[in-house]
């Protein structure tokens, strides 16, 4: 079913336009005034419309601890852990990154190097899940359509562990 749809879409869209499209995610890590602050472990991934896992975008955790001990807390990003994390041997090239400081972070995924070029045409969401040591956990979903036929942008806002999360796609 999906295969046929993809083929049809590709025929209409033309292959090059699929590969040229890109996706930009802006994630705001809020500045929190707490006695003990740790940068949140954060996972960014793509889900299908039924919330099943489609592809990973980024995982930020404490990469610098000796013996990769930071991986001990990866399970705290519970949904990501269930859907993908527990299948992986971290660190993963192109996926793992250090935790980020409060502020807005912009990530752009595009071209053949990202997991996007393998996505069948359809409705998706970027999911951002953050878990903070001695703090809370929050998950935000922002929908998008892939591949984009025109530039589109959506956003959502976290309430405690995440600030604004926006997803922009353009052909």
């Amino acid at each position, binding site marked *: 079913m999906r295969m046929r749809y993809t083929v049809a879409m590709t025929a209409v869209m033309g292959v090059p336009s699929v590969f040229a499209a890109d996706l930009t995610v802006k994630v705001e890590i809020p500045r929190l005034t707490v006695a003990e602050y740790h940068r949140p472990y954060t996972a960014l991934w793509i889900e299908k419309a039924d919330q099943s896992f489609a592809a990973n975008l980024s995982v930020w955790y404490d990469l610098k601890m000796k*013996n*990769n*001990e*930071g*991986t*001990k*807390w*990866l*399970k705290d990003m*519970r*949904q990501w*852990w*269930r859907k993908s*994390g*527990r*299948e992986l041997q971290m660190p993963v090239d192109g996926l793992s990154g250090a935790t980020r400081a409060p502020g807005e972070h912009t990530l752009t995924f595009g071209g053949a190097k990202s997991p996007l070029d393998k996505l069948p045409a359809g409705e998706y969401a970027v999911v951002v899940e953050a878990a903070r040591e001695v703090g809370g956990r929050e998950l935000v979903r922002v929908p998008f359509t892939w591949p984009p036929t025109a530039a589109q942008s959506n956003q959502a806002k976290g309430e405690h562990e995440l600030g604004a999360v926006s997803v922009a796609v353009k052909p």
Partner: protein
Amino acid sequence: MNHLISRAAAPIALALAALLPLSAQAHRGWMLPSATVLSGNDPWVTVDAAISNDLFYFEHNAMKLDGLLAFAPDGSKATPENLATGKYRSTFDLKLVQKGTYKLAMVNDGLMASWKVGGENKRARGTAESLAKEIPANAEGLSVSRNQSRLEVFVTSGKPTDTVLKPTNQGLELAPITHPNDLFAGDTASFRFLLDGKPAADVEVTVIPGGVRHRDALGEIKVRTDAEGKFSVKWPSAGFYWLSATHGAAQRPAPGAAPAGPAGTLDKPARRASYSTTLEVLPQ
């Protein structure tokens, strides 16, 4: 798996029976792991084990650890460390060396006999062999029951695996359909109960959320297994849950009281098989 339990079962057969107090009907035996879903290179769990009224508070008796068994994801035996028993609880640690799902179990299988001699109540526990020697020829009203019980908990490092979930086909056992370390609030999990490896139909299953002390109602969920031994539970919220079921004759009667179930004999004891586990349900 079968050989793993049977090899280990003999020396520990009476461990649990011996530790349950005589008036234990209302008490619940449980193990509580510090975590059930773990990541990282060097994960450990620490487990409390106790017999109590409330869940999961240690306020009655420590559970003896003599019969503790641990199985690694590949089915081999693992070694719990730092075993200690205090007034109200026992505790031990387990290093999760392999990736996958571990099982911690306390398995009991023993006979209990009660009889009267000249109006005086007598009672003994043991094997068929030892009881045959102990029960005098002039015993009156002899009642023999076989009590099998199994307490299990599961913990997973990394991706959940199924090897330790395979039934041993002895007594009442939980055969998970939903993995016991993949439970989320709002989801419905399915399991099966097996008796000696065959579907245990029409068994009442009781599920009680932890934190009993901090609420007014017990909040128990009762479900019955279907013809295939299957049942499902929709988790109302995240937390630890105690799940238990009993098959067969009612708990033996109080001294002097009439037997609640059929009075068994040494050759054909009244059989009672029970199972309990502690499950952790995570928030969505």
